Protein backbone atom coordinates (compact mmCIF):
# COMPACT_ATOMS: atom_id res chain seq x y z
CA UNK A 1 0.00 0.00 0.00
CA UNK A 2 1.18 3.50 -0.79
CA UNK A 3 2.04 5.88 2.06
CA UNK A 4 -1.01 7.98 1.29
CA UNK A 5 -4.13 6.91 -0.52
CA UNK A 6 -7.11 9.07 -1.25
CA UNK A 7 -10.22 7.34 -2.59
CA UNK A 8 -13.25 9.19 -3.86
CA UNK A 9 -12.83 12.12 -1.48
CA UNK A 10 -15.78 14.50 -1.41
CA UNK A 11 -16.15 17.52 0.82
CA UNK A 12 -18.62 20.32 1.19
CA UNK A 13 -18.92 22.99 3.86
CA UNK A 14 -22.55 23.69 3.03
CA UNK A 15 -24.88 21.05 1.67
CA UNK A 16 -25.27 21.23 -2.09
CA UNK A 17 -22.01 23.13 -2.59
CA UNK A 18 -19.27 20.53 -3.02
CA UNK A 19 -15.73 21.91 -2.72
CA UNK A 20 -14.03 18.59 -3.55
CA UNK A 21 -15.68 16.17 -5.97
CA UNK A 22 -14.42 12.61 -6.13
CA UNK A 23 -10.71 13.26 -5.62
CA UNK A 24 -8.53 10.13 -5.82
CA UNK A 25 -4.76 9.73 -5.92
CA UNK A 26 -2.02 7.95 -4.07
CA UNK A 27 1.41 9.10 -3.04
CA UNK A 28 4.43 6.84 -2.53
CA UNK A 29 7.02 7.45 0.16
CA UNK A 30 9.66 9.95 -0.94
CA UNK A 31 7.64 11.68 -3.62
CA UNK A 32 7.65 15.47 -3.97
CA UNK A 33 4.18 16.41 -5.16
CA UNK A 34 2.98 19.89 -6.05
CA UNK A 35 -0.73 20.66 -6.04
CA UNK A 36 -1.61 23.54 -8.32
CA UNK A 37 -4.85 25.24 -9.20
CA UNK A 38 -6.51 28.64 -9.14
CA UNK A 39 -7.53 30.21 -5.86
CA UNK A 40 -10.73 28.61 -4.58
CA UNK A 41 -10.05 25.33 -6.39
CA UNK A 42 -10.00 23.47 -3.07
CA UNK A 43 -6.25 22.98 -2.56
CA UNK A 44 -6.24 24.00 1.11
CA UNK A 45 -9.37 22.00 1.81
CA UNK A 46 -7.88 18.89 0.21
CA UNK A 47 -4.65 19.24 2.16
CA UNK A 48 -6.58 19.64 5.42
CA UNK A 49 -8.62 16.52 4.74
CA UNK A 50 -5.41 14.48 4.67
CA UNK A 51 -4.79 15.01 8.41
CA UNK A 52 -8.47 15.68 9.13
CA UNK A 53 -8.02 19.32 10.12
CA UNK A 54 -11.37 19.58 8.38
CA UNK A 55 -13.75 16.65 8.54
CA UNK A 56 -13.67 14.29 5.60
CA UNK A 57 -17.02 14.27 3.84
CA UNK A 58 -17.29 11.12 1.77
CA UNK A 59 -14.54 8.79 0.63
CA UNK A 60 -11.46 7.59 2.43
CA UNK A 61 -7.99 8.78 3.24
CA UNK A 62 -5.46 6.10 4.17
CA UNK A 63 -2.24 7.27 5.73
CA UNK A 64 0.41 4.67 6.49
CA UNK A 65 -2.25 1.95 6.33
CA UNK A 66 -4.65 3.71 8.72
CA UNK A 67 -8.09 4.94 7.73
CA UNK A 68 -7.81 8.59 8.81
CA UNK A 69 -11.57 9.16 8.77
CA UNK A 70 -12.23 6.23 11.09
CA UNK A 71 -9.79 7.20 13.86
CA UNK A 72 -11.00 8.14 17.31
CA UNK A 73 -9.46 11.09 19.16
CA UNK A 74 -6.38 9.22 20.25
CA UNK A 75 -5.92 7.50 16.90
CA UNK A 76 -6.19 10.83 15.10
CA UNK A 77 -3.54 12.28 17.36
CA UNK A 78 -1.26 9.38 16.43
CA UNK A 79 -1.89 10.00 12.75
CA UNK A 80 -1.23 13.72 13.07
CA UNK A 81 2.02 13.39 14.97
CA UNK A 82 3.56 11.69 11.91
CA UNK A 83 2.31 14.41 9.56
CA UNK A 84 4.11 17.74 9.57
CA UNK A 85 2.32 20.85 8.39
CA UNK A 86 3.68 24.15 7.07
CA UNK A 87 1.45 27.19 6.56
CA UNK A 88 1.34 30.28 4.40
CA UNK A 89 1.37 32.55 7.45
CA UNK A 90 3.83 30.33 9.39
CA UNK A 91 1.34 30.01 12.30
CA UNK A 92 3.97 30.37 15.00
CA UNK A 93 3.35 31.77 18.48
CA UNK A 94 4.88 35.21 17.81
CA UNK A 95 5.74 36.11 21.39
CA UNK A 96 7.61 32.88 22.08
CA UNK A 97 11.21 32.20 21.13
CA UNK A 98 12.29 30.31 18.06
CA UNK A 99 13.42 27.30 20.05
CA UNK A 100 10.15 27.13 21.99
CA UNK A 101 8.19 27.16 18.76
CA UNK A 102 10.30 24.38 17.31
CA UNK A 103 9.79 22.21 20.39
CA UNK A 104 6.02 22.60 20.00
CA UNK A 105 6.38 19.99 17.29
CA UNK A 106 6.97 17.37 19.99
CA UNK A 107 3.61 17.75 21.76
CA UNK A 108 2.12 14.85 19.81
CA UNK A 109 4.58 12.54 21.59
CA UNK A 110 3.87 13.81 25.10
CA UNK A 111 1.20 13.45 27.73
CA UNK A 112 -0.88 16.53 28.36
CA UNK A 113 0.91 17.15 31.66
CA UNK A 114 4.41 16.83 30.17
CA UNK A 115 3.37 19.28 27.48
CA UNK A 116 1.77 21.79 29.84
CA UNK A 117 4.85 21.72 32.08
CA UNK A 118 7.12 22.02 29.05
CA UNK A 119 9.18 18.94 29.84
CA UNK A 120 11.47 18.25 26.93
CA UNK A 121 14.34 15.76 26.96
CA UNK A 122 17.94 16.71 26.27
CA UNK A 123 17.75 14.70 23.05
CA UNK A 124 14.76 16.71 21.89
CA UNK A 125 16.48 20.01 22.61
CA UNK A 126 19.60 18.88 20.80
CA UNK A 127 17.49 17.81 17.85
CA UNK A 128 15.81 21.21 17.79
CA UNK A 129 19.17 22.98 17.63
CA UNK A 130 20.44 20.60 14.96
CA UNK A 131 17.43 21.39 12.82
CA UNK A 132 17.83 25.14 13.31
CA UNK A 133 21.48 24.72 12.35
CA UNK A 134 20.51 22.81 9.23
CA UNK A 135 18.09 25.52 8.15
CA UNK A 136 20.59 28.24 8.94
CA UNK A 137 18.79 30.05 11.75
CA UNK A 138 20.53 28.62 14.84
CA UNK A 139 21.86 32.08 15.76
CA UNK A 140 18.24 33.25 16.27
CA UNK A 141 17.28 30.38 18.58
CA UNK A 142 16.56 32.65 21.56
CA UNK A 143 14.94 35.50 19.68
CA UNK A 144 11.21 36.02 19.72
CA UNK A 145 9.62 34.86 16.48
CA UNK A 146 8.03 38.23 15.78
CA UNK A 147 11.52 39.70 15.41
CA UNK A 148 12.31 37.43 12.45
CA UNK A 149 11.74 38.05 8.77
CA UNK A 150 9.05 36.10 6.93
CA UNK A 151 11.53 33.74 5.35
CA UNK A 152 13.16 33.05 8.72
CA UNK A 153 9.78 32.44 10.35
CA UNK A 154 8.88 29.96 7.65
CA UNK A 155 12.14 28.11 8.36
CA UNK A 156 11.11 27.93 12.02
CA UNK A 157 7.80 26.48 10.82
CA UNK A 158 9.67 23.85 8.82
CA UNK A 159 11.82 22.96 11.85
CA UNK A 160 8.66 22.56 13.93
CA UNK A 161 7.32 20.13 11.33
CA UNK A 162 10.63 18.24 11.06
CA UNK A 163 11.05 17.70 14.79
CA UNK A 164 7.87 15.61 14.64
CA UNK A 165 9.88 12.97 12.74
CA UNK A 166 7.14 13.09 10.13
CA UNK A 167 6.66 10.60 7.34
CA UNK A 168 5.07 13.32 5.26
CA UNK A 169 5.00 17.12 5.27
CA UNK A 170 1.97 19.02 4.01
CA UNK A 171 2.71 22.59 2.92
CA UNK A 172 -0.13 25.02 2.22
CA UNK A 173 1.23 27.81 0.00
CA UNK A 174 4.51 28.01 1.95
CA UNK A 175 5.94 30.79 -0.22
CA UNK A 176 2.83 32.82 -1.02
CA UNK A 177 3.77 35.55 1.49
CA UNK A 178 7.48 35.65 0.69
CA UNK A 179 9.72 37.62 -1.68
CA UNK A 180 11.41 35.71 -4.53
CA UNK A 181 14.73 35.26 -2.71
CA UNK A 182 13.18 33.86 0.47
CA UNK A 183 10.85 31.75 -1.66
CA UNK A 184 13.80 30.11 -3.31
CA UNK A 185 15.48 29.44 0.03
CA UNK A 186 12.33 27.79 1.37
CA UNK A 187 11.72 25.67 -1.73
CA UNK A 188 15.36 24.57 -1.76
CA UNK A 189 15.07 23.50 1.86
CA UNK A 190 11.90 21.53 1.18
CA UNK A 191 13.59 19.79 -1.73
CA UNK A 192 16.62 18.98 0.42
CA UNK A 193 14.38 17.58 3.13
CA UNK A 194 12.62 15.27 0.73
CA UNK A 195 15.89 14.00 -0.72
CA UNK A 196 18.11 13.87 2.39
CA UNK A 197 15.55 12.69 4.92
CA UNK A 198 13.36 10.82 2.44
CA UNK A 199 10.30 12.67 3.76
CA UNK A 200 7.35 12.85 1.39
CA UNK A 201 6.24 16.39 0.56
CA UNK A 202 2.90 17.63 -0.71
CA UNK A 203 3.08 21.32 -1.49
CA UNK A 204 0.17 23.56 -2.51
CA UNK A 205 1.46 26.20 -4.87
CA UNK A 206 -0.03 28.75 -7.14
CA UNK A 207 3.08 29.35 -9.24
CA UNK A 208 3.22 26.76 -12.02
CA UNK A 209 6.88 27.42 -12.83
CA UNK A 210 7.94 26.80 -9.22
CA UNK A 211 5.93 23.59 -9.20
CA UNK A 212 7.61 22.40 -12.37
CA UNK A 213 11.07 23.32 -11.08
CA UNK A 214 10.82 21.44 -7.81
CA UNK A 215 8.18 18.72 -7.93
CA UNK A 216 8.54 15.26 -9.43
CA UNK A 217 4.83 15.09 -9.84
CA UNK A 218 2.06 17.61 -10.18
CA UNK A 219 -1.61 17.33 -9.34
CA UNK A 220 -3.80 19.97 -10.99
CA UNK A 221 -7.01 20.86 -9.21
CA UNK A 222 -9.87 22.76 -10.78
CA UNK A 223 -13.20 23.38 -9.08
CA UNK A 224 -12.61 20.46 -6.74
CA UNK A 225 -11.66 17.96 -9.41
CA UNK A 226 -8.30 16.49 -10.36
CA UNK A 227 -7.74 17.56 -13.96
CA UNK A 228 -4.06 16.64 -14.18
CA UNK A 229 -1.98 14.08 -12.32
CA UNK A 230 1.39 13.13 -13.68
CA UNK A 231 5.14 13.75 -13.82
CA UNK A 232 6.04 17.43 -13.93
CA UNK A 233 7.54 17.47 -17.43
CA UNK A 234 4.23 16.27 -18.84
CA UNK A 235 2.41 19.35 -17.55
CA UNK A 236 2.30 21.22 -20.82
CA UNK A 237 0.78 24.59 -21.54
CA UNK A 238 -2.35 22.87 -22.76
CA UNK A 239 -2.96 21.55 -19.23
CA UNK A 240 -2.07 24.73 -17.37
CA UNK A 241 -4.43 26.62 -19.62
CA UNK A 242 -7.14 24.18 -18.79
CA UNK A 243 -6.46 24.30 -15.05
CA UNK A 244 -6.39 28.07 -14.89
CA UNK A 245 -8.94 28.45 -17.68
CA UNK A 246 -6.92 31.30 -19.17
CA UNK A 247 -6.96 30.82 -22.93
CA UNK A 248 -10.57 29.85 -23.03
CA UNK A 249 -11.63 32.83 -20.98
CA UNK A 250 -9.61 35.24 -23.12
CA UNK A 251 -10.96 33.68 -26.31
CA UNK A 252 -14.59 33.87 -25.30
CA UNK A 253 -14.12 37.43 -24.16
CA UNK A 254 -12.62 38.35 -27.50
CA UNK A 255 -15.51 36.73 -29.26
CA UNK A 256 -17.96 38.70 -27.22
CA UNK A 257 -16.26 42.05 -27.76
CA UNK A 258 -15.93 41.42 -31.49
Amino acid at each position, binding site marked *: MALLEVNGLMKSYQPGNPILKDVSFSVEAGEFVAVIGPSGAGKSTMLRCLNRMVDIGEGQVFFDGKDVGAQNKKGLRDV*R*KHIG*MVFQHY*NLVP*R*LTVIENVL*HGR*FGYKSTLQGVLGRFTEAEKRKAFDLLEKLGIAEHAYKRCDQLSGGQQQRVGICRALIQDPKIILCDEPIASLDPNSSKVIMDHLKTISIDFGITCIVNLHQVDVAKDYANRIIGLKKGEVVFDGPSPLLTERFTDEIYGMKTVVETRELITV
Partner: protein
Amino acid sequence: MNETVLKKRKFQMTLLFLGVIVLTYLSAWITDYGFISSLEAVPGAMAWMASNLLVNGEALGKLPDIMDKLIETIFMSIAATTIAAALSLFLAIMGSKTTMVNRAFGTFSRFVASLSRNIPVVAWSLILLLSFGQNSVTGFLALFVGTVGFLTRAFIETIDEAALGSVEALRATGATYWQIVSKAVVPQGLPQMVSWVLFMIETNIRSATLVGILTGTGIGYMFDMYYKTMNYEVVALITITIVLAVILIELLSTRIRKVIL
Protein backbone atom coordinates in the same frame (compact mmCIF):
# COMPACT_ATOMS: atom_id res chain seq x y z
CA MET B 1 -28.42 64.51 -8.25
CA ASN B 2 -25.54 65.11 -5.87
CA GLU B 3 -27.01 68.40 -4.78
CA THR B 4 -30.35 66.88 -3.83
CA VAL B 5 -28.51 64.31 -1.73
CA LEU B 6 -26.62 67.09 0.04
CA LYS B 7 -29.80 69.07 0.60
CA LYS B 8 -31.52 66.03 1.99
CA ARG B 9 -28.58 65.44 4.34
CA LYS B 10 -28.74 69.06 5.51
CA PHE B 11 -32.45 68.79 6.10
CA GLN B 12 -31.99 65.63 8.15
CA MET B 13 -29.32 67.29 10.28
CA THR B 14 -31.58 70.26 10.97
CA LEU B 15 -34.41 67.95 11.93
CA LEU B 16 -32.13 65.98 14.25
CA PHE B 17 -30.89 69.18 15.87
CA LEU B 18 -34.43 70.45 16.45
CA GLY B 19 -35.39 67.03 17.80
CA VAL B 20 -32.61 67.14 20.39
CA ILE B 21 -33.65 70.62 21.54
CA VAL B 22 -37.29 69.63 21.88
CA LEU B 23 -36.31 66.49 23.77
CA THR B 24 -34.13 68.47 26.16
CA TYR B 25 -36.89 70.96 26.93
CA LEU B 26 -39.42 68.21 27.31
CA SER B 27 -37.34 66.25 29.79
CA ALA B 28 -36.44 69.41 31.74
CA TRP B 29 -40.12 70.26 31.93
CA ILE B 30 -41.11 66.75 33.05
CA THR B 31 -38.41 66.56 35.73
CA ASP B 32 -38.91 70.18 36.80
CA TYR B 33 -35.30 70.95 36.07
CA GLY B 34 -34.55 74.64 35.69
CA PHE B 35 -31.53 75.66 33.63
CA ILE B 36 -31.32 79.10 35.14
CA SER B 37 -31.83 78.07 38.72
CA SER B 38 -29.27 75.28 38.44
CA LEU B 39 -26.76 77.70 36.96
CA GLU B 40 -27.50 80.08 39.78
CA ALA B 41 -26.80 77.30 42.27
CA VAL B 42 -23.24 76.72 41.02
CA PRO B 43 -21.57 79.68 42.76
CA GLY B 44 -23.35 78.78 45.98
CA ALA B 45 -22.13 75.18 45.78
CA MET B 46 -18.61 76.41 45.14
CA ALA B 47 -18.74 78.66 48.13
CA TRP B 48 -20.05 75.83 50.29
CA MET B 49 -17.23 73.53 49.19
CA ALA B 50 -14.64 76.20 49.79
CA SER B 51 -15.84 76.89 53.31
CA ASN B 52 -16.74 73.36 54.44
CA LEU B 53 -14.48 70.94 52.61
CA LEU B 54 -11.33 72.06 54.35
CA VAL B 55 -9.02 69.62 55.98
CA ASN B 56 -8.11 70.72 59.48
CA GLY B 57 -5.86 69.33 62.18
CA GLU B 58 -8.62 67.38 63.85
CA ALA B 59 -9.48 65.62 60.58
CA LEU B 60 -5.82 64.76 60.05
CA GLY B 61 -5.95 62.83 63.30
CA LYS B 62 -8.33 60.42 61.59
CA LEU B 63 -5.77 59.73 58.86
CA PRO B 64 -4.56 56.35 60.23
CA ASP B 65 -8.18 55.11 60.34
CA ILE B 66 -8.80 56.38 56.83
CA MET B 67 -5.63 54.73 55.53
CA ASP B 68 -6.71 51.45 57.11
CA LYS B 69 -10.04 51.53 55.34
CA LEU B 70 -8.48 52.74 52.11
CA ILE B 71 -5.99 49.91 52.04
CA GLU B 72 -8.74 47.45 52.90
CA THR B 73 -10.77 48.77 49.96
CA ILE B 74 -7.84 48.62 47.57
CA PHE B 75 -7.01 45.06 48.55
CA MET B 76 -10.63 44.04 48.23
CA SER B 77 -10.71 45.49 44.72
CA ILE B 78 -7.52 43.71 43.77
CA ALA B 79 -8.73 40.42 45.21
CA ALA B 80 -12.12 40.68 43.52
CA THR B 81 -10.45 41.49 40.20
CA THR B 82 -7.81 38.77 40.25
CA ILE B 83 -10.18 36.03 41.39
CA ALA B 84 -12.66 37.17 38.75
CA ALA B 85 -9.82 37.10 36.19
CA ALA B 86 -9.17 33.41 36.89
CA LEU B 87 -12.82 32.53 36.33
CA SER B 88 -12.97 34.80 33.29
CA LEU B 89 -9.96 33.10 31.73
CA PHE B 90 -11.73 29.78 32.04
CA LEU B 91 -15.01 31.16 30.67
CA ALA B 92 -13.22 32.92 27.83
CA ILE B 93 -11.41 29.75 26.77
CA MET B 94 -14.77 27.99 26.71
CA GLY B 95 -16.44 30.89 24.93
CA SER B 96 -13.86 31.76 22.27
CA LYS B 97 -14.51 30.22 18.87
CA THR B 98 -10.84 29.33 18.53
CA THR B 99 -10.66 27.25 21.67
CA MET B 100 -14.29 26.25 22.22
CA VAL B 101 -14.75 22.66 23.41
CA ASN B 102 -18.38 22.44 22.42
CA ARG B 103 -21.21 24.70 21.43
CA ALA B 104 -23.24 24.35 24.63
CA PHE B 105 -20.33 25.40 26.88
CA GLY B 106 -19.53 28.26 24.53
CA THR B 107 -23.05 29.63 24.54
CA PHE B 108 -23.31 29.19 28.30
CA SER B 109 -20.12 31.10 28.99
CA ARG B 110 -21.06 33.96 26.66
CA PHE B 111 -24.47 34.11 28.30
CA VAL B 112 -22.97 34.35 31.80
CA ALA B 113 -20.58 37.04 30.59
CA SER B 114 -23.24 39.11 28.96
CA LEU B 115 -25.64 38.80 31.89
CA SER B 116 -23.10 39.92 34.46
CA ARG B 117 -21.76 42.69 32.22
CA ASN B 118 -25.06 44.26 31.32
CA ILE B 119 -26.19 44.78 34.89
CA PRO B 120 -24.28 47.75 36.36
CA VAL B 121 -22.14 47.24 39.45
CA VAL B 122 -24.42 49.46 41.50
CA ALA B 123 -27.42 47.31 40.63
CA TRP B 124 -25.45 44.21 41.52
CA SER B 125 -24.66 45.65 44.96
CA LEU B 126 -28.36 46.32 45.57
CA ILE B 127 -29.39 42.85 44.39
CA LEU B 128 -26.70 41.18 46.48
CA LEU B 129 -27.54 43.41 49.44
CA LEU B 130 -30.92 41.71 49.65
CA SER B 131 -29.44 38.22 49.80
CA PHE B 132 -26.23 38.80 51.78
CA GLY B 133 -27.00 41.83 53.91
CA GLN B 134 -24.67 44.71 54.72
CA ASN B 135 -21.23 43.17 54.98
CA SER B 136 -17.95 43.06 53.13
CA VAL B 137 -18.88 39.85 51.27
CA THR B 138 -21.61 41.78 49.46
CA GLY B 139 -19.22 44.48 48.29
CA PHE B 140 -16.69 41.92 47.21
CA LEU B 141 -19.28 39.91 45.27
CA ALA B 142 -20.71 42.97 43.54
CA LEU B 143 -17.28 43.89 42.18
CA PHE B 144 -16.52 40.27 41.39
CA VAL B 145 -19.66 39.63 39.34
CA GLY B 146 -19.35 42.79 37.26
CA THR B 147 -15.67 42.12 36.63
CA VAL B 148 -16.29 38.55 35.46
CA GLY B 149 -18.60 39.83 32.76
CA PHE B 150 -16.27 42.52 31.51
CA LEU B 151 -13.09 40.45 31.59
CA THR B 152 -14.66 37.38 29.95
CA ARG B 153 -15.67 39.50 26.99
CA ALA B 154 -12.25 41.17 26.79
CA PHE B 155 -10.40 37.85 27.11
CA ILE B 156 -12.52 36.22 24.38
CA GLU B 157 -11.51 38.99 22.01
CA THR B 158 -7.88 38.70 23.04
CA ILE B 159 -7.84 34.96 22.45
CA ASP B 160 -9.61 35.22 19.11
CA GLU B 161 -7.17 37.72 17.73
CA ALA B 162 -4.04 36.26 19.24
CA ALA B 163 -4.31 32.58 18.66
CA LEU B 164 -5.97 31.54 15.40
CA GLY B 165 -2.94 30.46 13.39
CA SER B 166 -0.90 28.86 16.12
CA VAL B 167 -3.88 26.87 17.41
CA GLU B 168 -4.32 25.37 13.96
CA ALA B 169 -0.62 24.57 13.74
CA LEU B 170 -0.49 22.87 17.13
CA ARG B 171 -3.64 20.90 16.44
CA ALA B 172 -1.91 19.61 13.32
CA THR B 173 1.08 18.39 15.32
CA GLY B 174 -1.18 16.19 17.43
CA ALA B 175 -1.04 18.42 20.51
CA THR B 176 -3.82 17.97 23.09
CA TYR B 177 -6.34 20.66 23.95
CA TRP B 178 -4.67 21.77 27.18
CA GLN B 179 -1.23 21.72 25.61
CA ILE B 180 -2.52 24.12 22.98
CA VAL B 181 -4.23 26.36 25.52
CA SER B 182 -1.26 26.53 27.87
CA LYS B 183 1.52 26.82 25.27
CA ALA B 184 -0.02 28.88 22.48
CA VAL B 185 -3.18 30.67 23.62
CA VAL B 186 -2.11 31.81 27.08
CA PRO B 187 1.48 32.91 26.28
CA GLN B 188 0.32 34.90 23.27
CA GLY B 189 -2.63 36.53 25.01
CA LEU B 190 -1.20 37.00 28.50
CA PRO B 191 0.22 40.54 28.22
CA GLN B 192 -3.02 41.84 26.76
CA MET B 193 -4.98 40.04 29.47
CA VAL B 194 -2.80 41.43 32.26
CA SER B 195 -3.39 44.84 30.79
CA TRP B 196 -7.15 44.31 30.99
CA VAL B 197 -6.83 43.10 34.58
CA LEU B 198 -4.91 46.24 35.54
CA PHE B 199 -7.55 48.39 33.88
CA MET B 200 -10.22 46.54 35.84
CA ILE B 201 -8.36 46.99 39.13
CA GLU B 202 -8.31 50.75 38.53
CA THR B 203 -11.99 50.77 37.66
CA ASN B 204 -12.88 48.64 40.66
CA ILE B 205 -11.06 50.86 43.14
CA ARG B 206 -13.19 53.72 41.88
CA SER B 207 -16.38 51.65 41.99
CA ALA B 208 -15.48 50.23 45.39
CA THR B 209 -16.12 53.61 47.00
CA LEU B 210 -19.61 53.76 45.58
CA VAL B 211 -20.30 50.10 46.28
CA GLY B 212 -19.00 50.67 49.81
CA ILE B 213 -21.54 53.44 50.43
CA LEU B 214 -24.32 51.07 49.37
CA THR B 215 -23.11 47.96 51.14
CA GLY B 216 -21.59 49.62 54.20
CA THR B 217 -18.03 48.49 53.71
CA GLY B 218 -14.57 49.97 53.32
CA ILE B 219 -13.77 53.56 52.56
CA GLY B 220 -17.22 54.15 51.08
CA TYR B 221 -18.85 53.38 54.40
CA MET B 222 -16.51 55.73 56.22
CA PHE B 223 -17.29 58.46 53.69
CA ASP B 224 -20.99 57.91 54.19
CA MET B 225 -20.72 57.91 57.99
CA TYR B 226 -18.80 61.20 58.26
CA TYR B 227 -20.96 62.74 55.58
CA LYS B 228 -24.14 61.95 57.46
CA THR B 229 -22.72 63.28 60.72
CA MET B 230 -21.76 66.43 58.82
CA ASN B 231 -18.08 66.07 59.62
CA TYR B 232 -17.10 67.59 56.29
CA GLU B 233 -13.43 68.08 57.14
CA VAL B 234 -12.97 64.31 57.35
CA VAL B 235 -15.07 63.82 54.22
CA ALA B 236 -12.68 66.13 52.38
CA LEU B 237 -9.68 64.21 53.64
CA ILE B 238 -11.23 60.90 52.59
CA THR B 239 -11.96 62.26 49.13
CA ILE B 240 -8.39 63.49 48.73
CA THR B 241 -6.89 60.16 49.81
CA ILE B 242 -9.14 58.28 47.36
CA VAL B 243 -8.15 60.56 44.50
CA LEU B 244 -4.46 60.21 45.36
CA ALA B 245 -4.76 56.44 45.63
CA VAL B 246 -6.46 56.17 42.24
CA ILE B 247 -3.85 58.36 40.59
CA LEU B 248 -1.07 56.34 42.18
CA ILE B 249 -2.55 53.03 41.03
CA GLU B 250 -3.00 54.42 37.55
CA LEU B 251 0.61 55.52 37.33
CA LEU B 252 1.72 52.14 38.60
CA SER B 253 -0.30 50.17 36.09
CA THR B 254 0.87 52.37 33.23
CA ARG B 255 4.41 51.45 34.26
CA ILE B 256 3.61 47.74 34.39
CA ARG B 257 1.90 47.91 31.00
CA LYS B 258 4.96 49.50 29.44
CA VAL B 259 7.14 46.68 30.70
CA ILE B 260 4.96 43.77 29.62
CA LEU B 261 3.55 44.87 26.29
